[in-house]
């Protein structure tokens, strides 16, 4: 039977649209430089709408008969919609930024679309080679995007460091995959699971070494301690909207791959890798939140705060239950909305003031009350205060860890969460208590005002009425555990 190509329509839309955006940019040299971003945002929206049509579809994409390399199910659909949604917001916040500070606007927007495409393929891959190639597609896009400000040395430096460590982690990841291939003799997730559930005892060493390398490789991609060294540099050096994308798209896609790989392929060997991931999770959340306390740069602060969040999300991977899956998906959505809100605010501020130091936020409440209020919402949500998205999603995550027998890890997570409240409050203090350094109010551009308003409403919506999204996440996660 031929593979069912109609399963991949959202991916085709993104690929064709990316080419189209570049073509338009090349053909119309007089085009204003924020137009390609809006055009690309439409493409991401179209792909997102196309993805919605796959609700309740449950089909594999067979490259050769019997080898399912991709699988479209509710898990895929949920993540596809999430990734496309993120791309729309990233492109909207990019438009003015690109116009003011970057050249090659067409390529920029196209690469953002291709990165989203890579993320979507990572989510649906059910075969090692496919998933890895998708991961590389996403990574390559990010190497280019991080160093996109060609004339800015910081951007180049961040790109080079990110690239070297990324390539290094790829090599580790691949070595792990090759060992797993050797032990199980297959590269499909189903085949690996079958081979692992009736394996002999003598293979344990190769397996454990394989898991160590795979976890190290993926740990780099999601930025878990001790593989996080590049994160603050990449976050600080990259063009600002790309920093936002690094903290949302790249994390969401990598975690979707991580979770699918470990719960569908490696679940029979759960005992062998559970403790490794639990340990990394504990170290990551404590380290990220403690180092965040000393940051003076807003982007580095968000880098460490995102490392802390990675620690929370790793709880779900370590637990590897259906509840953990649904709370991971739910937390990812809440985290994405919150982080996008925070970064849109930083973009507006950066476009206006050219600074991303926390000290320069002084008196923001006086200068632009709307921005300050929105920022407070985002920060409270990240800290996990009740009424905001972050509270409920984090709570679910910790409970799922507790239920899976990782009580100590949930305890550590609560402590780490309390620590994080401190540095978020420091930012809020800067905005509300300290007098402004530069006097004078300024206005938020109408479009970005709207974007921020939508995202802030989203944060409250998820915090007050989480049921609809939680149901969707539940259905999505159930697909991974249907066997």
């Amino acid at each position, binding site marked *: 039977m031929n593979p069912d190509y109609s399963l991949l329509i959202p991916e085709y839309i993104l690929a064709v649209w990316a080419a189209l955006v570049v073509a338009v940019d090349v053909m119309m040299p007089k085009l204003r430089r924020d137009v390609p971003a809006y055009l690309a945002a439409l493409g991401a929206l179209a792909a997102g709408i196309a993805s919605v049509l796959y609700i309740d579809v449950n089909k594999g994409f067979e490259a050769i008969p019997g080898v399912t390399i991709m699988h479209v199910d509710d898990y895929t659909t949920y993540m596809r919609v999430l990734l496309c949604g993120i791309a729309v917001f990233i492109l909207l916040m990019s438009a003015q930024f690109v116009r003011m500070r970057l050249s090659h606007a067409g390529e920029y927007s196209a690469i953002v679309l291709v990165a989203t495409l890579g993320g979507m393929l990572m989510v649906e891959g059910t075969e090692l080679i496919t998933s890895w190639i998708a991961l590389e597609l996403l990574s390559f896009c990010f190497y280019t995007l991080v160093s996109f400000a060609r004339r800015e040395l910081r951007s180049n430096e961040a790109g080079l*460091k990110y690239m070297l460590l990324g390539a290094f982690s790829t090599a580790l990841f691949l*070595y792990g995959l090759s060992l797993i291939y050797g032990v199980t003799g297959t590269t499909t997730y189903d085949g690996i699971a079958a081979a692992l559930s009736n394996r002999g005892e003598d293979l344990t060493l190769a397996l454990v070494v394989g898991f160590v390398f795979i976890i190290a490789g993926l740990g780099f991609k999601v930025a878990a301690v001790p593989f996080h060294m590049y994160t603050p540099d990449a976050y600080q050096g990259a063009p600002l909207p790309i920093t936002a994308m690094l903290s949302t798209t790249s994390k969401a896609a990598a975690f979707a791959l991580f979770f699918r790989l470990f719960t569908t392929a490696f679940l029979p060997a759960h005992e062998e890798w559970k403790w490794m991931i639990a340990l990394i999770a504990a170290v990551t959340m404590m380290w990220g939140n403690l180092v965040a306390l000393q940051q003076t740069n807003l982007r580095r602060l968000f880098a460490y705060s995102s490392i802390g969040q990675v620690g929370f999300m790793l709880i779900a991977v370590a637990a590897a239950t259906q509840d953990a899956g649904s709370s991971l998906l739910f937390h990812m959505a809440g985290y994405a909305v919150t982080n996008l809100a925070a970064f849109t605010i930083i973009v507006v501020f950066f476009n206006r003031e050219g600074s991303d130091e926390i000290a320069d936020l002084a008196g923001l409440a006086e200068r632009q009350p709307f921005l300050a209020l929105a920022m407070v919402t985002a920060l409270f949500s990240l800290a996990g205060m009740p009424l905001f998205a972050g509270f409920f999603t984090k709570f679910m995550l910790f409970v799922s860890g507790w239920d899976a027998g990782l009580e100590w890890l949930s305890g550590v997570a609560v402590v780490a969460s309390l620590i994080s409240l401190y540095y978020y409050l420091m930012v809020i203090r800067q905005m509300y208590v300290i007098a402004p350094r530069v006097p004078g109010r300024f206005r938020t551009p109408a479009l970005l005002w709207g974007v921020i308003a939508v995202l802030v409403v989203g944060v409250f919506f998820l915090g007050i009425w989480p049921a609809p999204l939680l149901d969707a996440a539940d259905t999505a996660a159930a697909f991974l555990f249907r066997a």
Partner: protein
Amino acid sequence: MSVSLEHYLVVSAVLFGIGLWIALAKRNAIIILMGIELMLNAVNLTLVAFNRFVTLADGRPALAGHVFVIFVITVAAAEAAVALALAVSVYRTRSTVDIEQIDLLKR
């Protein structure tokens, strides 16, 4: 004495170890890149060796390992291209590719 799977695996593990050491210990971005290439080639050797010794349940020869290697080679080439381009653009402004000296991004 014939060459068994273990021999291949030991060679590739040693190769991987050398690559790992180069990538972690060296300061020059280009040398680090060479270390990473060495690691990727160790992966290729492992994959080909496993592919030779793995037999499928229905007796057909295994293929996945070979396919994997072709993809790894391709991606490694692309990786080198992107990394070298970045190294060149850094070198233009800083006249060095020593990662210790490229340190604008520290607190």
